[in-house]
């Protein structure tokens, strides 16, 4: 499956997707430092067997006010949607994530998964994560999860005890955290993101 990558503010990213029967879309949204404001994406799964694989990565090290609004609607049964959003939030930045997965009454055998994980890099940074499931069908497989935390201090000490300088150790931890989304990106963009982390 072809993975579409959109760097917000640089590429023109879709705000609406409609997936017909059997259609498969893999989409990755990248919010580099400086990306700010509201970003909306609505997806309608309207034909059986449609599959959405959506991921996102946000880097907010400064004073960004990022507001992500995602709506995935399963109108018919037998469709799959997966969402994974990961981000690093530092400085005085604020990132909010609103993700609604809606499963209509007739959309039996729906599989819908949504995850949002953030790492806070400063005391003043804020993350609000609101994943929501609205399910009207009874034979579905759905889950959502959200975590917000800090870089693990035990990992950091372990890395430093092997001679990896603190800044480099933190960078390794950040890259590791973002790895599931980074894997979906082309090499030049990965390098650009690595450069943002150091």
């Amino acid at each position: 499956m072809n993975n579409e990558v959109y760097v917000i503010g640089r590429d023109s990213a879709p705000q609406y997707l409609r997936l017909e029967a059997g259609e498969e879309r893999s989409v990755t949204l990248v919010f580099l430092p400086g990306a700010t404001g509201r970003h909306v994406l609505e997806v309608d799964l309207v034909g059986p067997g449609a599959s959405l694989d959506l991921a996102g990565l946000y880097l907010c090290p400064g004073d960004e006010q990022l507001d992500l609004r995602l709506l995935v609607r399963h109108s018919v049964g037998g469709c799959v949607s997966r969402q994974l959003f990961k981000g690093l939030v530092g400085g005085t930045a604020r990132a909010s994530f609103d993700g609604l997965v809606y499963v209509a009454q007739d959309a039996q055998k729906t599989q819908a998964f949504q995850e949002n994980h953030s790492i806070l890099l400063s005391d003043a940074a804020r993350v609000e994560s609101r994943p929501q499931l609205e399910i009207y069908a009874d034979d579905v497989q759905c889950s959502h999860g959200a975590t917000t935390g800090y870089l693990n201090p035990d990992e950091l000490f372990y890395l430093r005890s092997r001679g990896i300088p603190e800044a480099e150790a933190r960078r390794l931890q950040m890259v590791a955290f973002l790895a599931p989304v980074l894997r979906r990106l082309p090499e030049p963009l990965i390098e650009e993101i690595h450069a943002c982390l150091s």
Partner: protein
Amino acid sequence: MNNDVLLEIKGLHARVEDKEILKGVDLTIRRGEVHAVMGPNGAGKSTLGAVLAGRPTFEVTAGSVRYDGRDLLAMSPEERSWAGLFLSFQYPVEIPGVSITNFMKAAVSARRKAQGLPELTPAEYLKLLKEKMAFVQMKGEFARREVNVGFSGGEKKRNEIFQMAMLEPTLSILDETDSGLDVDALRIVAEGVNRLRTPETAAIVITHYQRLLEYIVPDVVHVLKDGRIVKTGGRELVDRIEEKGYESIDE
């Protein structure tokens, strides 16, 4: 044997939050020596290792530590590593998303940079990695695995010894490296440690049991109880503890 003092600990006190754990530790280690630090649970053995490696959780409230002529307590954990100190963790940390290869590459590069040595070429690094993996009998796919993720207890400890071999420390501190190991893994670990013994290097083997000391024979044995070294002797001390327990060791 070179009789230079490598490590000199004087009156070391350390606490975590409000709890004082080390209450005045004195310990001198010379190059070429292996010291065992034994003691009951909660005596402060692991704290001693952690404080020497610079774990930020612990606060040193009094005392001094000289390492190779330098003030160890003034150095960051990474500087201690560059200066040749190595702690084998009792509970090695899992780092999802970081491969062993990348982890060790970052460690080796940082150390060489700190020592003013040129970076290894990819081929040189690969050669070093393979050589050290063979040293602890690790197979090829090991290098690609995420650090300690899904490792068995024995694999985690072998990974510690592998890292030790990669970094060729001057002072190795093995914190309960024997806990949770079957005999085969214990032998691999002990052989690894013994092959790294040189007249220039030293080791501190922290252990609750005598088992590891059948394989790594110490020159000096210390008993740590309630944050202090209460007894120092030779190998006969190990037998006495084995026979009569820690209760038999009085201050």
